[in-house]
């Protein structure tokens, strides 16, 4: 079947191409309904990736955060019209040690191959997870980024020592907000501190114990563990600040993506015996567990509604450009494309 695909052909330029989808017995046809723009999409859209990366990856359809409706399911896994979240990570093998989201052979939508900016997406049944009845679709649209936070926090629970009295989150953007929110839920007895640069944004973190401007951190402040949700050029500063104020044997999770290498205070990592780890992708189990959490703790979904920014109905390329441009100029919040294709 001919499928309309909106590919980024060069920075800031989308074009339509039709691609054939073979209607076979093992793939489910999903119509995307709500797409959420991520910073990774913006790096392609604005041409911020290295030139050789852009040359290698484009043309490609962007977006790896999306939900949709099942249109045709020959596998019998879902009924027609079922609302599902689509998992962008697409493994081609399994490994007893390495998780699907870390396998170098796995493909990722909107990075290694076409993302969700398509009329239909053809997916295997295990790349879809049913959404709870009545969930706000604009929140469900960015389930993927929340699942990454969920994944990292699950690893944190495995990797970190049990003294978790104070946990610091660096970053007052969407990822910082989501991570702090999930930490609050998972570790209700811990003190959650958020470190940022914008007081207005920090005021939205109503569920944490304290917030700090990074330039006004009390000298005697110390934390047990840290999460870096900054990325970009500001990430090294955030990580080094975490290294400075973390107690020995604490853990630091790297979650923000940077294009450049980060100079880190490795001497202090060594002296304090700090454990560093990182993640930017999640796997099926994280989606499944997160959806269960959404069902059991609807207040989390309610908190996430607060970071829904622009909602743009998208019928054609001018609407897509508008959504991406508005997303660049936003102060905070996720930009959602209501996908009318």
């Amino acid at each position: 079947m001919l499928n309309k695909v909106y590919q980024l052909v060069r920075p800031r330029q989308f074009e339509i191409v039709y691609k054939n989808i073979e209607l076979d017995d093992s793939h489910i046809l999903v119509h995307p309904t709500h797409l959420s723009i991520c910073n990774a999409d913006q790096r392609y859209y604005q041409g911020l990736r290295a030139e050789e990366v852009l040359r290698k990856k484009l043309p490609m359809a962007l977006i790896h955060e999306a939900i949709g409706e099942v249109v045709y399911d020959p596998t019998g896994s879902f009924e027609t019209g079922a609302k599902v979240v689509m998992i962008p990570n697409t493994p081609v093998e399994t490994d007893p040690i390495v998780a699907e989201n870390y396998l170098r052979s796995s493909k990722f939508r909107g990075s290694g191959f076409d993302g969700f900016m398509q009329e239909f997406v053809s997916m295997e049944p295990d790349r879809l997870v049913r959404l709870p009845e009545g969930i706000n679709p604009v929140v469900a649209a960015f389930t993927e980024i929340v699942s990454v936070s969920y994944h990292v926090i699950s690893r944190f629970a495995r990797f970190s020592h049990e003294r978790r009295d104070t946990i610091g989150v660096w970053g007052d953007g969407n990822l910082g907000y989501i991570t702090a929110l999930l930490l609050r839920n998972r570790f209700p007895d811990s003190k959650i501190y958020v470190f940022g640069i914008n007081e207005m944004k920090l005021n939205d973190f109503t569920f944490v114990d304290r917030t700090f401007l990074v330039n006004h951190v009390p000298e005697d402040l110390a934390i047990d563990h840290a999460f870096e949700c900054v990325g970009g050029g500001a990430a090294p500063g955030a990580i080094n600040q975490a290294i400075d104020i973390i107690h020995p044997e604490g853990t630091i999770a790297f979650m923000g993506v940077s294009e450049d290498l980060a100079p880190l205070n490795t001497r202090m990592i060594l002296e304090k015996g700090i454990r560093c780890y990182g993640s930017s992708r999640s796997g099926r189990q994280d989606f499944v567990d997160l959806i269960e959490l959404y069902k059991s703790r609807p207040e989390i979904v309610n908190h996430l509604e607060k970071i829904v920014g622009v909602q743009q109905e998208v019928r054609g390329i001018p609407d897509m450009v508008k959504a991406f441009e508005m997303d660049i100029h936003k102060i905070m919040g996720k930009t959602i494309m209501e996908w009318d294709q």
Partner: protein
Amino acid sequence: MSENIFGVILAGGKGTRMGNAERPKQFLEIGGKPIIVHTIEKFAVYPDFEKVIVLCPKAWVEHTKDLIRKNIPMQDRIVVIEGGASRNETLMNAIRYIEENHTLDEDTIIITHDSVRHFVTRRMIEENIEATRKYGACDTVIPATDTIVESCDHQVISQIPDRSTLYQGQTPQSFHALKLKQIYESLTEEEKAILTDACKILVLKGEQVHLVEGDVSNIKITYPADIRIADSLIGGR
């Protein structure tokens, strides 16, 4: 699946404008598949259709059935029948099929589409259904980009209409089947011969036909060059 909504794919054309092509244009291949298969697939995966009725020339009925058998998995929702002598007669054959095999009543909706417009999208089909439910009938159009010149004597311009009010008709065109049948049957034989467009029949009889936004890429394969254009739209990395 919604009851009483039918996809009607009009594949009755003999392809006389396609030059020396040895077969009707709907059976020519684009992107490795016959055009008609691409079009049927788009309708076949749309869940609201009770049935997708494909109408083609008598000599091509079995060929079309074979193509569907080979290419399309959800075959039970597709039926191939013979078209009529004209576009409207073909449409009437589809309505007759519904009447004989399903239910034809005030709520029966048909979404009719040219088999040679294989770039139709899910959105157009959905908006056709919505508009027909709401307004009774609809036509898929795009704003006219060329200046349209009218010449009554085919020698000199009689008028140049204001382009801002003009649209180019595409398909799908969608109707309440029973009403369309009743109006068509009320036409004289002369009217039937002149009125080749079902939307025009409704408009002339004072019925409202709503506009649905089409797409510039929803092209109709008419001339040999269109095959090349269509091929160039398919592919990509």
